């Protein structure tokens, strides 16, 4: 069962990888918004990891909660800025 899931995930990944040269051969392009979505995927994972680290650190040392919160907010804002930018550029690129 696990093997089946693993193989099928590889297959889907390979399919997505082959989409790019196939689209190029066809003459069309990959819609730009997909790029924007991928960037947000990365940003979401990044901010999730950030939140995990921050919450664990607060759990270990509750008296430094204020400092950790501030650092978390700043880092999240920086990452989100790039994500917004990528979404906008991706959605205006079209094909």
């Amino acid at each position, binding site marked *: 069962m696990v093997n089946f899931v693993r193989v099928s995930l590889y297959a889907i990944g390979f399919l997505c990888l082959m989409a790019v040269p196939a689209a190029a051969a066809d003459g069309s392009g990959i819609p730009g918004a997909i790029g924007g979505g991928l960037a947000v995927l990365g940003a979401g994972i990044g901010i999730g990891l950030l939140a995990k680290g921050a919450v664990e650190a607060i759990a270990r040392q509750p008296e430094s909660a204020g400092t950790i919160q501030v650092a978390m907010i700043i880092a999240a804002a920086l990452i989100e800025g790039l994500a*917004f*930018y990528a979404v906008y550029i991706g959605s205006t690129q079209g094909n």
Partner: protein
Amino acid sequence: MASDILHIKDSYYFEIPKFMWQSHREKASDFPDWFVRLDDDYQAWEADPILVGLTEIGVSGDDLAPLKARWLAWQHADHKNAAWPLDGYLERQSEVVSKEASAWAKKNPTEANDPLKAFLAVNPRPEIEWFIQLQKDPSQAAKWTEVKAKVNSESHVKEYLNTALAKDWSKEKIFAYNRSLDGKILIPQPFGVPRNAYEAESGLCISKYMILEVAVALIMLFLFNWLAKRIATGAAPTGKRWNLLEGAVQVVRDHVVVPAMGEEDADKFMPFFWTLFFFILGCNLMGMIPWLGSPTASFSVTAALALVVFAIGLVMGVKTFGVAGYLKNICPSLGLPWYLALWVIPLLWLIEFASLFIKHLVLSVRLLMNMGAGHLVLLGILGIGISAQAASMSSVGWGSVATISVLGTTALSVLELFVAFLQAYVFTFLSAMFIGSSMHHH
């Protein structure tokens, strides 16, 4: 960031509820000049002197005869082409062909020194070729500029308004125009000529965001002048307003600038950072007020702010280290042995030099995108509720969708309020960090 569907862009009018500012214009001369220029009847009337001018320049009658019909068909073909006058149509078509020609020339390189001619030899475009020849010939192009200038002059619209055609605008047309101008307080434009309600033709057109920025600046002047007088007395703060303002001012110093810049330099730059923080905060909060907008959702505003931060960093860095020293300082000294430092340091220096520009650009884009995209999302969600009615669902269906969308919009507006404060904080913090790092040894 102008787009057809967004109303969160800068405009040359203030929008308020329609019932509060009804347009009661009665004849063509009541409408502003740029509005008349976009009218179909005016453009048809204006096309005749353009055709006469073209005949005088020497274009043949065969080329000119079908021009008007083709131009009108082009206008109606795509809503992006609506209300482009005849001279604009000709120039846009020739630009389109030039772009096609250069793209074609990249794929089929020839030795010909004129890719446009080679392109036209293979793919003839008879409807616009004569115009491209006209643009290439210097004397004809000069005469064309004259024709355009005459047609685009202010007196031309006044001429039209005196003709019988202008007095003849039908009641339906005037009614439709009035309905489209309901609720829009047009900003008077003494220094420039707008092309339409969103774009400027020439000169400096006063836009809604400019007025909002001035309003924020005046409010800040008033509030902080009041605060400064109170602080000068040396007494302890009493009352809500004084405590709030003094607390905010202290927080910006102790928790935003000092952690980023260090204690010694903070006092020198505090006026700048206070201005920066409260200006950005004020502009962001303007976006929370209905029917206003946040000026920081415009790239010009955020780019100007980031440019100021960059300039200050540059000037302070050069003052502290001199030009060569400043450039050396942007790269950290890693204490590498000489055989590694030989090729690592130049690479690192290039990256740091590029990042000098990139990080200020991203500073502006972050603020812009947070303000712009945030309100875009709100528009989208509320739009779902509004368009659910157009989808003619049952009233129960529409009611529940609309309720959910309004509740969602309210929740997101609270998030937007938080983002307004956060983005002002992040911008100020990063500016302090950049300016501090340009003055201290890395």
